[in-house]
């Protein structure tokens, strides 16, 4: 079971526990800043597929170095037969621990997205998260995230960012969560946000058990001061 899957389920069923785990994970996995407790963590993945047939494949993934700075990754095209097609995949993350403020931004984007042989299509997908903490206030936001020309099962959706955690059933396949958002932090010392713009949950048609997932444009930022 993937981390993203766990996060989503956690957001619905065990929010506080998962939030704590997320925060703990961020603290453990993220680079240490110049003082204890100061962290700037960012991660962006343009696309990721995890299915029994395709295995686990990740396209254009970056992680903010411990020392901060800016990292980016590009992939011209992603193709997983019968599962995912996309072009122009780019991920960027930047941030730094400062004496007075920690700021992290992560963005993941893909164009000409085709999921499950056209069941889901989009012209452009962008996940953008920003987190900052200044010692007295910490906040995250996803402004700028967008979906253009999104069509699901033949139904077109308006351009822009759907309401957070918009769930759409996919008959015989599972379901998709649009603009999936998973928050963390206490809003004072720390804040974190993961945005998965398109997160397809594949379910076994007989048992209903999770059988895989497809994520397009996943961005995570976490700031702690």
């Amino acid at each position, binding site marked *: 079971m993937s981390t993203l899957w766990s996060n989503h389920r956690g957001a619905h069923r065990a929010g506080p526990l998962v939030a704590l785990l997320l925060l703990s994970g961020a603290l453990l996995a993220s680079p240490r800043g110049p003082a204890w407790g100061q962290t700037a963590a960012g991660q962006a993945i343009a696309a990721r597929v995890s299915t029994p047939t395709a295995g686990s494949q990740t396209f254009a993934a970056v992680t903010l170095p411990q020392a901060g700075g800016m990292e980016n990754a590009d992939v011209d095209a992603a193709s997983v037969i019968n599962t995912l097609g996309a072009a122009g995949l780019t991920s960027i993350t930047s941030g*730094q621990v400062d004496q007075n403020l920690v700021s992290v931004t992560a963005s993941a984007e893909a164009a000409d997205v085709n999921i499950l042989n056209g069941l889901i299509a989009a012209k452009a997908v962008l996940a953008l998260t920003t987190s900052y903490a200044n010692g007295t206030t910490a906040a995250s936001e996803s402004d*700028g995230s967008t979906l253009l020309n999104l069509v699901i099962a033949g139904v077109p959706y308006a351009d822009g960012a759907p309401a957070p955690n918009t769930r759409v059933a996919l008959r015989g396949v599972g379901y998709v969560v649009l603009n999936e958002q998973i928050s963390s932090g206490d809003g004072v010392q720390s804040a974190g946000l993961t945005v998965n713009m398109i997160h397809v949950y594949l379910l076994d048609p007989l048992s209903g058990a999770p059988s895989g997932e497809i994520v397009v444009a996943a961005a995570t930022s976490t700031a702690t001061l």
Partner: protein
Amino acid sequence: MKNGRTRARVPVLLAAALLSLHCSDAASPEHQVSRPSAAVAAAGDPIQLDQQNGTYGSGTFLIKGFNPTSPHVGDAILATIFWFGAPGGVTGNIIESVTDVLTTVPNTPVGNKYELVEFVSDGTISMATYLATNVQNFPDAAAEPSPVLAVRADLKVPVTNGGIALSAWIGVAGTMSQALGEHRAASGTASPPFISPTIADPGAISLNPGALAYGVSLASPPAGVQGPSGWTLIGIGNDAVMKNDDEYDARFTVSPSGGTTDPQWSWFFTGPGVWLASVLALNPAPTTGDLTVTTSTSGENLPATDYTVTLDGSVSRSITTSGTVTFSALSPGPHTVALSGVPMNCQVAETNPANVTVVAGETANVTFTVTCSAPPPPPPPPGPNDFMTGGGKIGGGREFATFGLKASPDGGKFKWVQHCPDGHRSASAVCARGKFAFHGTVTPGSYAQGARGPNCRTWAGTGTSKEIGAHDFSVQACDGGERGRGVDFIEVTIDGYQNSGYLTGGNIQLHGRRKS
């Protein structure tokens, strides 16, 4: 202008498509012609003949109604008045005024303004054409027995032989200055041996796309006539009283693509004669408007570089600090105009961005008044620990850019992705080249204080892109605080490509010094 040319006689052909009616009923003093049905045209529709009529008469005024049906409100009306001889010895224009009335008893004044376009006379015959645009204040397309619209010409001296020809046009621009194009008139004589027709030619005029050319020729004595090739007949008239005096022929053509036209009437005189001819252009109702942006800058420490004017967040143009830029052919309706590139020591007096409404056929104006003052002492140059990180997005909708950056005195990295989901758009300031991803390396030593303020930094470098190749680039980024959206600013130049704006997502962070 006197003009009289002859050319080889050609067969007289009146195309079956002629709109109107050769009405030369000598027994009727008033020629009544049929009217094409015409719906009210929407902006952008071609000019159409709505109604037309004409009559002959005598006395101190000439009047004719658009019976049996009035034109539409908003039409342009052309009234051409003819008279024979020099009544009262007056050889100039004897028309005192042209007005319109409703055919009530007594007549009800309507009040539209008719202005003289062209008067021409050779001393024997005379004609004058008047124009009223966007006619109002009468029942739209009223049919008899309701009162209909009539046009009346009051004369300075009575005439014994006169006439008036009316035509109403749908789709003409609504003001005189917009509607009236080039116009000309000429007169001439027929000379023996009268074997070839005499050419009545007012001269060539230019036509804007979609413009109407209206021409009329008057000859004395009446003679056979062949109108300009390809023009549509509106009316032709003579009367019993004036049977031996004169005859007119009025025609029109509409030019979808514009150009020039030089109408010529072939009058088949059998003896000495005279002719008049005039032609005028009427422009179609505009479908777009213009917007003029004016900047005026005063004070101290005036900016050394131009500002940028951005229309509707997508089209940007450079404008001098005290100058004018015009955006043409804009769709009518609300627009926004933003002025950027104003240094921190200068303030814009007006609301910026400005909201403005563009009206078709008109020029809207936006003025930005900028006052500059002496700037505070420049901040110290960036120290060795000063650096900037950031990432995010500017723009929105279907044209936006995402970026990531780290820049310091020692160098750094810069990533810029211009998104253009609709592909190359030559009219777009940022998507003229289409989508591209650019990865740059900051040149050590180029990192410096930015001109936009103490929390701004600039740097330069070189980079590559699979789509647009290798280029130099420069950046100015400003940390306006948290959240970065709406307060942090970035300005990017990659050779000919420029994009700038406040962040619509993300954050830019200046590190290593306490921000001002």
